[in-house]
Each structure stands twice: as C-alpha cells, then as structure tokens.
C-alpha cells in the first residue's frame, strides 16, 4: 500500500507555510442560569456530592498519613498515598460523560479518578446490573464484607458506593478484600467492571498502555473510547510523546479499513497540576508553556487540543463531552490540558520547599468545592444546611468504611505462611486459550489457501537434508523463519483478536523476512508498520492484551529492549500478578539477536528479561523448536519474550525425525531437548551456539574420544532442570554455552543452580563459556568475542578434565578469571 503513496520531490520542496488553528484556552463561560438548562438539580447536586466524597476520602488518607488517626480512629499506613486534594472537579467532570464501555487509565495520583469513574458508573448501571457486577467480582468476596457490615438498607446504589469506597481503601491498605487482593496498592488500584483500568506508578506509562486499549477497540471494532490520564510532568516522557504520535499516525485513517478514516479513539487527558513532584513544568522543567500547545506538533488536527479550567466541573464536563463526540466520530486522538492543582503536595511527606505558602493559600482560596457550592446556592439549587447534612453523612460513611478496612479479621492481609503460593500462583496465568474470541470470524483479505505465505510453505522441504543425505538448497529448505511464520499465519486465521506490528513488519516482511508474503493476506488494522517507538510498541501491546486481545510485537534487534525498558520490565511483566490474576497478558515480544552489526546490534540480552519476574523467555535454535514454541506462546495467556538469532534463520531441521510437521504442535515451555546423546560431558546451550557446541562435540569425539551430550535449553523461563541434572549425574561434567556476555548471564545462573542440584555428582566445576565482557567488535573479529567450538574444548581441558595432547588457546584458569574480574572485563 505505501507504494501507492508516491513521495513526490516536487511536493516535498514546494514552498508554503504551515498554518495553525487557535487552541482554545479556558473558553468555557456559562452562567449558572444557562447551566441549569443543561443539568437537572439532581445532576448538579450529584456532581457536588461526588467531589465531596473524593475530598473526604483523600482527607482521611492525609490524616492517617500525617496524624495516624482520622475522626478518632487510629491507624498507621506505611504504604504510599499520592493525594489529589484540589483535583476533584477535574476527575468528576471527566467521569460524568463516560460510560462503562469507556475506559480510563491513570497514574500514581488516581484515587480521585477511580472514585469519580466508579460513582459515575454506579449512576449509569441499573440496580440489577450493578448488583451482578459486585456479586461476580472476585467471587463476591468484596461484596460480602460491605453487604454484611454496610448494606445501606437494601439500596443497591448506596451499597455500591460503599462497595467502591471499601474496595479501593482495602486495596490501598493492602488487604485481600481490596480490588486487587492488596497486590496493587494505592498507585495501581483499578476495577474493570466500571471501566476503571490499571493505574500506573511509572510516570507517563499510562499513555502507551491506554493507547493499546484504544488500538484494541479500533482493530476489533469495539464500542467506547479510552482516556489516558497523566500529569503535566509526564509530558516530558518519551512513552507519552511516542503515544501521541502513534495514535496520530496517518495510516490509521488513510490505510486501515480501506482508508475509511476512523481515527484512534483515545483522549490523552493531562491533569495539569503544575508540578512533576517538585519540578514546575510551566516555567522550569518544560518549554511548552501550556500543555495544550503540544497537540499542534503531532497532527494537522492539532489533536483537537484544548486547555480547560479544571477547577470548574462543568467546564470539564463540557470539554470531555465534546472530545468524546469527536472520538466517536472517528476523529481521534484528542488532547485535553485540564488545569488544576494539588494543594496536598506530591505526597503527605512533601514539605513544599519548592512553593510558597502564599501560592498554596491562593489555590485554597480558589478551592473548587466551596466555589461550586456557592454557585449552587446562588442558582437556588440547594441551601447551606443541605450541604451541612450531606457532609455529615459523607464523614460518617467514610469513618465506617475505614473501620472496616483496617479490621484485620474482616479485611485480612495475604497470609504467605499459611498459603506460600499465594503470590507465586499469580505470576503466570498458564492458560491454554487458542482463540480469545471464538464467536467472531477473523478478518483476512484472502482465504487461507490463497495466502501467498501459506502457499510457499507448502512447497518447502521440511528437513535439512534430502533422502540421500544431501543438504536441501537454502531456497527450498523449511527454515527457522518458516517455523516462526507458520504458527503465526495459522493463528491469524484462527484468533480474530491477533494483531502483529513493529518496525517494518508489513511490506518489508519484517527486517529478517519472517513476515514475508503475509501482507497480501492480513488487513492493515491487524498487521502494520509501527513508528520507530519501542515504548509505544510494547506499551500498547500491554494495553491491547489487558482488554482481551492477543498481540505479537517485534523490536527487530534485541538491543532495542532498552528503548522499551519500562514497558517490558514494569508493564508487560507485572500486570498479571499486580491485578491478582484478573488481567491476562497474551503477548509475544519477538526480539532478534544480531551478528555482524557491531556493539549495538549483536547482543543476547536474555539475562535482562529472565531477571524480571513475570516474563517467560524462550530462545529456539531449530525450525522444529521455533514452530512448537511459537505455537505454545500463541496458545497461552502469558507474556513471552521470544528470542531469535539472525545467525541461524536459514537453518533447516537437522534433529527432529521426519522434519517439521505441517500440523500445529506445541513444545512445552521449560522442557530442554537433548540434541546429541553422550556420556562423558554435558554441554548445555542457549540459542545459536547449539551448532558450535555440536562442532565441539564432534572434535571431542574424534580427537579425544570424549563423548559429549548436547542439550539445548530452548526455554529460559520457565526451565525444568531435571533433564539436565539427570545428564550431569551421568557425565559428572557440565559446560554451559551461550552468546551472551558471560558476566551475570543466564549461563551463570544456571551454572549456580546445577552446581547446587548435582553437587555430589560433579567431577569438576560447572563451567561457563560465554562471550567476553566487552563490546561486540566488528564481524571480522567475531571469533575473538563469541564462544567458538575450540573455546568449549579449552574450557573442558582447563577447568574440568585435561585432554591429553590438547593445547589450549584460551585462558580459562582461575588466575586469569580473578585478574579479569578485578578489572571488570
């Protein structure tokens, strides 16, 4: 398709000007008399009530944090509390127009947003729906507490308000009756049945995750919009800016669904409270002056950017309703700069060294809640005494909720002594769900039998050698690329939610040809080229998966993992367990380990990903294993980092009898594979070094009469050591080989584990042969950096069992090791 988009030099050099539209700044200017025509008295009073509830909730937490007591009830809460006192009007104004289908994502300062969206949803659901939601959530365990102790006389809406306040507070106090069993806490609480999606303690991280939720809606034609809430401080973060661009990219309206023009249904909503912790965004740490200005930099619609008075709930309602309408008309994305202030500071320990008492007082004087009250009295909607009664009721309710949430019997903490697997059981979902939406036909451009890649795969020879033992030519052999592609294309025809994207995936066919000939078969909105925005690529996959979809995203080179560090390490890895198992994360993140491309394009970073709890990590090195592991990854519901090696994409199947089956099959994650049987030494390999290990095994056999058993790890997390331990019990000797730099590698971790597990059977130390602790040099010096067959033999000779007649070229001795470690190389 982009071939049809001709890049015309004439047009490129055409003189002219870029024109900008005026960006509205606080233009809302209605009188109470005009507003009374829009809102009923009940609406206006409910808006007030919601703000007052949030204020009281945050005041309670502030009192607990600063005085260890609220309204006479004592409690000590060591956990975090980033309060939003002052931001209530912004939160309530936003939630007013949103429905259950509309999803909100927030930040570490999101108590107010959770409560506002929850109260809005309670108002919109009928009693039966509301009760069912509460009853079904976590098997009714949260409802049971409020029903027993605060049942509101059978009024379901009032009961639901108690449920909302209790579920959120119990979560903040890390109780098992909290919305996420206490595993999320203050900065991460959420409640999906009300459209309240996870809140994120990493500044700006909500943007790409919310983008993914919008992508889910856009690609699967689901109703509703997505709101990404974050602060002005987050506007300095790459992931936020990447998401603005990703959501704006031309193809969404011009190329997807034949260019029907539906934009990304996302509202980037900045609660602009003037500070990123203590850094003043306007005047100190940023240059945009007003956040709304950013919109003009991202697309010709200027993201419909607007700045509104976040101290006036009705101004916010007006703005959000208009943005929502734009998004529903397919004109997204949108950007709102909601001006507000948090008088309570960054956290209760904030001593406000960065602002003056006069400034705080001025904002207190402008407090949105008394201001709105005055407006309602002026409009004759309620009297002073009505408000007094309302406040008394809210304070009583909050006190009762707090008493429930701190009661260790009613609201216990997770008991890891009685139930040691409580957290470990939530690290992975380990489900087998081949199709995430079986009721819907997958959208494809051609029937499967006409898919060019499917047709090509049918012509491939599925073994490395022919019947006469001659190697099959490179062009005809079914290689690792094919082993990866086959289950992927199969899955596209099976699971309608599957999408795949990354840099140069579509027309280019993936930088290394894994996706070639798929473009003709998969529609744009399921398979597309992402901008060079690794954070947004991985972060959006996380949001996509949270909503119930399955995504394959690609980072091209493993070296780019650093560009998506937070999204891989904090988002993809953690949400299943931080949600107490409520969320699933069916993502395959493909990363390719390079060679020949120097220091920044040749690194095996398995250790980085294996270090982070919550990620599965695999690294196949044969077509059979590539297919079986990809199939298992795509049938599962866990995040998988799928390592590939550019050295061996062309390899045919040399090991599996009968070659690579055409039918789908799975390889169990964690199960290593004996690629060569031996009895004297075990060589355990990670990734492409398998072939160098086999070369070493051949030399050991032929030259030294040593029979090596070669085991391919295939998976790194999870990993079943039993096969390896059995082998080491037999051989007494073990060398672990991989292309990663040796220090702090997966090889080192495995060596330590195997030593522990098979110590009494060892005839020498478990020895690691990894790459040097250097930068990767040029390709011509490859053999001096990456492990070679001779290195493996040298290591055996010097560390485990001297080989008669062998002269080692590499120094694996203890003295040398100490010297290198001392120098840090």
């Amino acid at each position, binding site marked *: 398709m982009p071939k049809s988009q001709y890049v*015309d030099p004439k047009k490129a050099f055409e003189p002219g000007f870029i024109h900008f539209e005026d960006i509205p700044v606080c233009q809302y200017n209605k009188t109470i008399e005009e507003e009374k025509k829009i809102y009923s008295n009940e609406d206006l009073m409910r808006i007030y009530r919601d703000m007052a509830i949030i204020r009281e909730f945050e005041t309670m937490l502030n009192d607990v944090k600063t005085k260890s007591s609220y309204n006479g009830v004592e409690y000590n809460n060591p956990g975090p509390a980033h309060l939003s006192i002052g931001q209530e009007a912004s939160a309530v104004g936003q939630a007013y127009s949103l429905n259950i289908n509309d999803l909100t994502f927030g930040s570490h300062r999101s108590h107010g947003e959770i409560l506002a969206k929850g109260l809005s949803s309670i108002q919109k659901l009928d009693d039966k729906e509301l009760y069912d939601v509460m009853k079904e959530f976590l098997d009714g365990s949260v409802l049971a507490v409020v029903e027993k102790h605060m049942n509101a006389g059978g009024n379901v809406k009032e009961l639901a308000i108690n449920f909302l306040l209790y579920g959120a507070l119990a979560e903040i106090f890390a109780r098992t009756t909290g919305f996420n069993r206490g595993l999320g806490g203050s900065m991460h609480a959420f409640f999906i049945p009300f459209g309240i999606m996870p809140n994120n303690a990493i500044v700006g991280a909500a943007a790409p995750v919310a983008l993914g939720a919008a992508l889910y809606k856009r690609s699967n034609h689901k109703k509703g919009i997505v709101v990404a809430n974050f602060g002005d401080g987050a506007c300095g973060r790459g992931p936020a800016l990447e998401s603005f661009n990703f959501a704006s990219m031309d193809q969404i309206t011009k190329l997807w669904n034949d260019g*029907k023009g539906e934009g990304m249904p996302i509202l980037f909503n900045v609660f602009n409270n003037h500070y990123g912790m203590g850094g003043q965004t306007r005047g100190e740490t940023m240059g945009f002056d007003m956040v709304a200005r950013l919109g003009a930099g991202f697309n010709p619609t200027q993201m419909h950017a607007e700045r509104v008075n976040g101290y006036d709930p009705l101004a916010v309602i007006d703005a959000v309703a208009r943005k929502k309408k734009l998004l529903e008309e397919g004109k997204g994305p949108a950007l709102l700069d909601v001006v507000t202030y948090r008088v309570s500071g960054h956290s209760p320990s904030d001593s406000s060294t960065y602002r003056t008492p006069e400034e705080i007082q001025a904002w207190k004087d402008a407090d949105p809640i008394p201001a709105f009250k005055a407006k309602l009295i002026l409009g004759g909607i309620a009297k002073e005494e009505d408000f007094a009664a309302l406040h008394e009721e809210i304070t009583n309710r909050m006190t009762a909720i707090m008493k429930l949430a701190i009661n260790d019997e009613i609201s216990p903490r997770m008991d890891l002594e009685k139930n040691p697997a409580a957290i470990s059981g939530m690290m992975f979902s380990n489900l087998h769900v081949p199709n995430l939406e079986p009721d819907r036909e997958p959208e494809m451009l051609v029937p499967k039998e006409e898919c060019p890649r499917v047709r090509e795969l049918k012509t491939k020879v599925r073994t490395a050698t022919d019947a006469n033992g001659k190697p099959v*030519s490179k062009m005809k052999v079914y290689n690792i690329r094919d082993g990866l592609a086959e289950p992927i294309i199969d899955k596209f025809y099976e699971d309608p939610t599957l999408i795949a994207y990354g840099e140069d995936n579509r027309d280019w066919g993936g930088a290394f040809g894994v996706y070639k000939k798929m473009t003709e078969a998969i529609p744009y909105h399921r398979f597309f080229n992402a901008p060079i925005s690794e954070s947004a690529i991985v972060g959006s996959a996380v949001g996509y998966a949270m909503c119930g979809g399955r995504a394959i995203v690609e980072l091209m080179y493993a070296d780019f993992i650093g560009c998506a560090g937070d999204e891989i390490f904090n988002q993809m890895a953690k949400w299943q367990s931080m949600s107490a198992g409520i969320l699933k994360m069916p993502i395959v993140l493909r990363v390719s380990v390079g060679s020949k491309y120097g220091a920044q394009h040749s690194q095996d970073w398995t250790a980085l990903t294996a270090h982070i709890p919550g990620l599965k990590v695999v690294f196949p090195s044969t077509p059979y294993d590539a297919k079986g592991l990809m199939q298992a990854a795509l049938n599962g519901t866990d995040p998988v980092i799928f390592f590939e090696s550019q050295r061996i994409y062309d390899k045919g199947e040399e090991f599996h*009898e*009968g070659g690579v089956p055409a039918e789908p099959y799975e390889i169990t994650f964690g199960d290593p594979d004996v690629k060569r049987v031996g009895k004297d030494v075990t060589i355990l390999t990670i990734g492409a070094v398998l072939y160098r290990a086999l070369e070493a095994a051949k030399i050991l056999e032929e030259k030294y*009469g040593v029979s090596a058993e070669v085991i391919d790890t295939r998976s790194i997390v999870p990993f079943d050591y039993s096969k390896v331990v059995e082998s080491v019990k037999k051989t007494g000797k073990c060398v672990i080989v991989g292309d990663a730099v040796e220090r702090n590698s997966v090889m080192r971790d495995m060596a330590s584990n195997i030593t522990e597990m098979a110590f009494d059977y060892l005839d*020498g130390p478990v020895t690691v042969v990894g790459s040097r602790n250097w930068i990767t040099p040029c390709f011509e010096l490859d053999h001096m950096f990456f492990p070679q067959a001779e290195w493996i033999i040298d290591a055996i000779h010097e560390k*485990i069992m001297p080989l*008669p007649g062998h002269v080692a070229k590499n120094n694996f001795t203890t003295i040398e090791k100490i010297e290198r470690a001392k120098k840090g190389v």
Partner: protein
Amino acid sequence: MATAVIMPRQGQSVESCVITSWSKKVGDEVKIGDILFSYETDKSSFDEEATVEGTLLAIFKEEGEDVPCLENVCVIGKPGEDFSQFAPKEESAAPAEAAPAAKEEVKAAPASVAESTAEAGSEKISPRARALAEKTDVDLSRVVPTGPEGRIIERDVQAALDAGFLKGAAAPVAAAAPAAVVSTEPEYVEEKISNVRKVIAKSMHASLSTMAQLTLNASFDATKIMEYRASLKASAESMNLANITLNDIVLFAVSRTIGDFRDLNAHFLDDKMRYFNHVNLGIAVDTERGLLVPTLPHAEELSLNALSTQAKVLITEAQSGKISPDKLSGASFTVTNLGSMGVESFTPVVNPPQVGILGVCTITRRIKITAAGDVSYPAMGLSLTFDHRAIDGAPAAKFLQALCKNLEHFDLLLAK
C-alpha cells in the same frame, strides 16, 4: 568478444537465487537496459538488465532453477561467436570431503600409577571422585591427580581401580545412534494459465511497474440519480427507453465532464501527450475469460438512452467472447465498476497508455449535517486512479469534484 552474465550476489548472506522468468530467448537482440531475466532471493525479487549489446547466444539456467551466486547464467555476443568457455563445467563430483583424519586410538591419559607424594588431607578431590572412592575403598593416597590444579577427578580413581589396586568398575554405555532424517515431498497442482490471463497479467504488471499511479477516493450524494433512475424505470416501457442503470448514468456524466479535463482524456506517451477530441470510453467488463475493456467511441455525442443501449451491446459481445478485437482498443479513458459487488473503495489499475481510470463503488448510507439536523443520504463512492506522470493530484481531484457535482445535480447536467 562474448560476455557472460552472472547471477548477482544480492547481499552477503545470499548464496543462491531462483530464476523466476526469462524475458529474452536465445537468438534475441539485446539492448543495454533490456531485462534479461527476473530472479528472487528468499526475501525479494529483482530484474537483471543487460549491460552490453548483442545477441543472446546461450542460456545455461532455466526458469525455476536455483542458481548459486556468481555463476554464469547466459551469454551475450555476436551471432556465431564461440561461448563454450562460459558454459558451466560438467558436474564434476562434488569436492571430495576432506579425508577424515586418521583415527587415533585415543585413550584416557595414561595414569602412571606411582606412589603419591601428596600429603594426606590436603588433596583436592571432586565430589564425584570422592563418592567413587568411598564406594570402592580405593587407596586415595595412591591415586595420581590429573585434574586441573592437582584435583583428583573420577578418571584418576578409576585408573587406580583399573590398575588392580581394588575392585573393577562397570563398562561404559554405548551412545545411541543418531536418529535418521526423512524428507517429505511437497504436494501441489500446476495448471497452465490462459492467454487472456497472461495478457491481463502482463498489462496489469506493466501498468503498476511503469506508471506513477495513485488513487483518489470521493463520494457524492446519489439521491438525485437514484430518483431519476426510479422515474426512468417507471416510464421505460411507455417511452421505449433502455433499462438505464446507475452505471450508465455515471458513464454519461463522465462523457460530459471529462471533456473539460483534457489531461485525463488522453494518452501519456513518454515524450508527448495525445489529447483526444472525443470521449472514447473504455468499459471494463468481467467475462468468463477474464477482464475485457470494449470501447464506446464518441460517448459525449450520445444521449443517455443511446449510450445505455450501445454499452449493453458491447458488454454482451464481450461476455459472449465474439467481440471484434478492434472494439477492444482506442479508449481514451476507462470506467470500471465493482460497486455491484459491495466494494466501498478500491484501487483500479490504469490501462496504459491511458492516463486515468474511474472506479465506481457501491452506495453506502452516510450522515451529513444540515440546517435541519443530521440527515442520512445514499453516498456512492468513486475511486479515480491516474498516472501522476501525466497529471498532478489537484487537477485530477478537480475532475473528480466536477464529476461528483454533475452527478449530484444530474438533472442540470441533462439540461446542458
């Protein structure tokens, strides 16, 4: 002297390429820049152009052959010239594998069983060797360490045992034989393609590979033409009118509009433009044999009824396969219709050397905002592909705009 053409190496990792097609045959004249053959790697496909002039003397590699890079593929020279030196050598036996190194009987290091000088208690011994020693009651003081850093390893204990100091050990287990590998044959059916298909394939490919095509999509309010058609239908019999279709109405509107946009009613002939004084409308027809495009000459002179009648005759002739080849050429602009199959927008491919082609799409309901509120109306889509070499985007868009306007106000157009 003759020149050999080799299979180029398209990148360091490419070892061989498959020849997908030959554009020249032996005996053909070859000019510099002519495409000799096409070939593909596992990632992309390429055309090989001639870099010398002459006659194609020999082809060494056929279509479908997997040719190692840098090997000779064909020879260009003067007719009759000797080219035998370039022919591939007779398949000599594959370079014999390096003779296997003479197998030496390698045995474990001969552990000379001598009196150990190591002090008791200070010796290093692996856990495995110690376990063996304990199990067999070997005299450790007489075991000679051969492990790294003076460590007694399993083989040392074993050697001591073998030397007859103590009990013997079990024989080693033989390694299992490696599994055999069996290949599978791919299954498929090949059918020759028809000549019509070949012509279509060639012209479509030529069109897309030589022209700078792009498509503009627009839609118009089809209320008027639908009403007009309904009224025609009602009085067709009484007024002896043909069954005028929406497509006929679009053809009519094109014939009356395109005259004002001579760049589109034209042929692009590389160094010159041929502007037509009449509108010769090509009408794309789907037939059993494939796509045919009969021409309706001087369409702008025909009444709507005459245009409809003549178009039907052409379509019927094309579908029956009896149409004269003369009627399949000479079009100045083409109209194609996928709307009847529900297509909402598409990318028609220009029939060279014409400059443009109009795709007629289906009718969908859309909303427009009027003073009276939001109203739904039938929107018919039009997809205009044009050759950017001949005409720029803005004038092409103006044509599309004018056409939409004329269709929206069809009654006025008829009055002209």
